[in-house]
């Protein structure tokens, strides 16, 4: 078992870190959502690769095949993807509302505009 034999974990980890970095380093709300998506997708891929069996086919009963991939992680991730889509939709909707209310999608700009309007809080 060499360092690269579980390359799927390395890819998932790298994507995860890229996603988290984008979330933290950008003030633009839409870019934050993109980072969040990359981060979530990395975890989905981690799960999906867990269920992969080498040489296995889709888990549909058929006399031709005897080795199947593990379906349960895939089903779990189907649920997690739905959650992810809902989160993205809500996040983007909030970004649109922020743009309507502040005229910008940049978090720092918006905070500055609030601070300029209400000097004492």
């Amino acid at each position: 078992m060499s360092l690269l034999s579980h390359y799927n974990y390395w890819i998932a980890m790298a994507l995860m870190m890229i996603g988290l970095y984008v979330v933290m380093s950008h003030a633009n709300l839409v870019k934050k959502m993109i980072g969040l998506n990359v981060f979530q997708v990395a975890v989905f891929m981690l799960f999906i690769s867990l269920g992969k069996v080498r040489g296995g086919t889709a888990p549909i009963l058929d006399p031709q095949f005897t080795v199947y991939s593990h379906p349960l992680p895939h089903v779990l991730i189907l649920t997690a993807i739905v959650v992810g889509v809902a989160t993205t939709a809500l996040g983007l909707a909030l970004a649109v509302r922020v743009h309507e209310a502040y005229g910008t999608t940049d978090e720092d700009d918006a905070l500055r505009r609030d601070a300029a309007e209400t000097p004492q809080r």
Partner: protein
Amino acid sequence: MTEHLPALQVVIPLLAAPLCVLLRRPGAAWGVYAATALASLAISLLLFARTFDGGTLRYALGGWPAPFGIEYVVDAVNVLPLLLVSVLAVAVAIYAPRAVASEIERPRIYLYYACLCLYLAGLLGIGITGDAFNVFVFLEISSLSGYALIAMGRHRRALLAAFRYLVMGTVGGTFVLIGIGLLYALTGSLNMADLAERVPPLYDNRALHAALGFIAVGLAIKAAVFPLHAWQPDAYAESSSAASIILAGAGAKIALYAFMRYAYGIFGGELVAEVLPLGRVLLLLGVVGMVLGSAVACFQTDVRRLLAWSSIGQIGYIVVGIGLADPAGLRAAFLHLFNHGLIKGGLFAVVGIVLLRTGGTSLDHFAGLARRMPGTFATLLLGGLGLIGVPLTAGFVSKWALAQALIGAQQWWVLAAMLASSLLALVYVGRIIETAWFREPPGGKAAPAAPGMSATVWMLALLTLWIAVDSSAIAGVASHAAQTLLGGAP
């Protein structure tokens, strides 16, 4: 019928949400939400009656037996969180019509109630499920509806607060998902009781340690445990008053319950406290949280923000109780989880009444109000004294339990920090009391009374008073809960 109670606890609010959306009329949507909240409370009380003496109810969803199907479990561990959520849901239902009419635009009111139903379903689901993955799903249901509820606050700052909460909350939720994935990869099971049996032989496994770490960090974000609390003050301060009662009272508490269930019900106290230093880390974070949260609260000028920072401090007490990893500590954690939820919910309700009356929530808006509305402010005094932990309040019951646990574990430094935090609580509660009782009230006519809102405040205050006078039932459940968690399988 009664054997389906565990499922109905979640199914009723889940179905009520689309019903609110279909009905569209504000009054009808409120009716649906109120009926849902009452039904949830009735079910919680029935479940409480069956399990408070240490019994366990198991319900196989769809008839699929336990390790394969999803199982709902009700035992001493989760009846208190379920009861807390349902009581606060009813409190919100009584409170909402007047508060919502003044804070939410009329065309959006039915969506507000739909979100409340979903939030309720999510919290109750986290509480009742016995399946590790199901916790994640309900966690995200409650979080997503929570983001929407916060975004409906009256100022545009609420949008930014909701977005920040969404980003941090999603990272937290995804961390929990990673932890569950690693757990599943190691054991091949998702049922909590089944996992509890499969995990102990793996105590040396690195991936298991990573799983616990991911779940701990993820739930700590959701529970606003120091230092992962950054989203919390804004989120509580900007949300509308009705939603803030259940958000502040139950939202973080249910994540702490989930953490206790994972840490002790699945991973086991031995892994948390002996194999890994998580217990000591929690003690440290709890101590810093309770001192820092209370200290920052002293400098706030907005009362909601003050209460939110006070919550970070009070969550520190619960975290310390969890970190002790002994029966006395967990018992104190459960007691404080319940008592603080009721106290903080009541205090946010009082702030909502002040907002309706004066149009703001800063300390200046409280000036002299205690003379104008002595009844409401009597409950504020009661809640404030509870935050400090003065004898004959609910806060004292749980703080005393925690102090006893700390003395038993000989954690003198933590005890000293707890006393320091209580003194700081005296300062911030004192500021509110000083402003409300001893400053001159502004002129102007009295705003119309809001009987529903006052009723909510009194209901929560009397409940905490009842716990202060006779805490035997709650304390008994908390003891059973601690024993169940440290004794092994849920």
